[in-house]
């Protein structure tokens, strides 16, 4: 059989394809190889390697940057599931380094301190796929036009409060629904209102969904939270502080994995939630000094 056919790497299909494989799964923030093993044992579909979980970043303040490559490599060596890592918004040099480290996905993340006040990274320039946060449909489409292969609703990281994630998801899903009802002339106005490229708006009108998978992040702290956002249209969940700031991380991790699969089955959600111990202590959004979701544009 002929084996001389050309291989193409880093294509849109290959980048979006990995996000396709993560659907129905949980991506967990981990700060060391031990945490990564706990996440993998619990059934995480991927881990996000970072030095401090968002609630600690929030508490400590200061500038938050890309993690030490050695720490990321330690986590890559510890687990067989995909390993993601975060770069600062607009910091393409950090992204180039993460690509060189061989991470499976780069999160251009508002959880870190932005490096550029006007420009996100040109993600088409990379072979490694990117995930970006969004608070509304316009932001999601701008990130996709820059090359993001996965969108996650931002929520408010490090709060253990799901209300912002719900707001962002409802905004994105709601506008997608409205666009599918719009006539072709109205799509021009939608593109203008959303400050998004017209072809992407037209694609949504045709398909009724984003051109890339849409996951949810920011404030998910319990199996019930995971079920809620999946029922609202998220195709997978990122859990940051919610696992390793709970009283029994291994049990919480395992329970949220089951919740992402059986999100429509309240009986299973009851079973996995019973006797879990304390979820992370949450924060009221109105009491926050910094809203991370406001980073990025």
């Amino acid at each position, binding site marked *: *059989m*002929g*084996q001389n*056919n*050309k*291989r*193409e*790497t*880093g*294509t849109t*299909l*290959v980048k979006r*394809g*990995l996000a*396709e*494989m*993560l*659907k*129905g*799964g949980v991506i967990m923030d981990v700060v060391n190889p031990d945490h990564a093993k706990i996440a*993998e*044992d*619990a*059934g*995480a*579909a*991927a881990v996000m390697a970072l030095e401090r979980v968002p609630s600690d970043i929030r508490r400590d303040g200061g500038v938050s940057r890309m993690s030490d490559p050695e720490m990321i490599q330690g986590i890559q060596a510890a687990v*067989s*599931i*995909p390993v993601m890592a975060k770069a600062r918004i607009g910091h393409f040099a950090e992204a180039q380094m993460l*690509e060189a480290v*061989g*991470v*499976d*996905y780069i999160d251009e993340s508002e959880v870190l301190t932005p490096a550029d006040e006007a420009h996100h990274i040109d993600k088409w320039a990379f*072979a*490694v*796929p990117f995930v970006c946060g969004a608070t509304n449909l316009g932001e999601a489409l701008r990130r996709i036009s820059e090359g993001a292969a996965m969108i996650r609703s931002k929520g408010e990281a490090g709060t253990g409060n799901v209300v912002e994630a719900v707001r962002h998801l409802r905004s994105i899903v709601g506008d997608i629904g409205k666009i599918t009802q719009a006539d072709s002339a109205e799509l021009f106005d939608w593109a203008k209102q959303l400050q998004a490229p017209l072809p992407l708006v037209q694609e949504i009108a045709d398909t009724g969904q984003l051109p890339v998978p849409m996951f949810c992040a920011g404030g998910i702290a319990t199996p019930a939270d995971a079920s809620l956002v999946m029922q609202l249209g998220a*195709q997978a969940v990122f859990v940051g502080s919610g696992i390793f700031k709970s009283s029994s991380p291994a049990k919480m991790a395992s329970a949220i*994995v*089951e919740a*992402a*699969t*059986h999100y429509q*089955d309240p009986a299973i959600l009851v079973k996995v939630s019973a006797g879990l111990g304390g979820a992370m202590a949450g924060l009221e959004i109105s009491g926050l000094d910094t809203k991370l979701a406001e980073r990025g544009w």
Partner: protein
Amino acid sequence: MLALQGAFAAHEAILRTLGCETRQVRNTRHLVEVDALVVPGGESTTMSNLLARSEMLTMLHAKALGGLPIFGTCAGLILMASEICDGRDDQHALGVLDMAVSRNGYGRQIDSFETDIEVRGLDAPFHAVFIRSPVVTRVGPDVEVLAEVDGNPVLCRKGPVTVTAFHPELSGDDRLHRRWLSQTGILRHSSAQDGRGLGRSRAGAQTE
């Protein structure tokens, strides 16, 4: 379709255009009701973990060995294999096909690729998408190898069970789904040869 985790929605969309009635399988009650099963790509450790916790593992094993038609892609191939060279100790291989696999044998995501492959029995090449795919390092004598990349099998069949190391659900070409459906008698009067791409198969499905 096994819907514990992974790319089940993409398979579901293709099977629906082919006129199949589909359902998402998440527990033993669902599993007893299906005539055939797609085991999609995703994270094989996650799927193995959830299978064990949902008590489906034993039933799936029995059904698979008992002749249930199965189409396993990527993680689904790993689950059907008999030996996982570099898996976790607690990872399950059902041993439905006599084959050894190396997980993510092609490397990390940056090494994921797409390419055209020659498939035995298909006139035109199939565009195959490999995403952190497993490498099949050995197959037993009763496993038919239908396509290879670099000398490693990427499409194999034994009776009603077809497995791929790549993702036929991602490239908009339904010929392998059609072939599996017709070989297992689920979709009659359909040949994998008579058409390429979803456009024509959609018309074909309406005549079923």
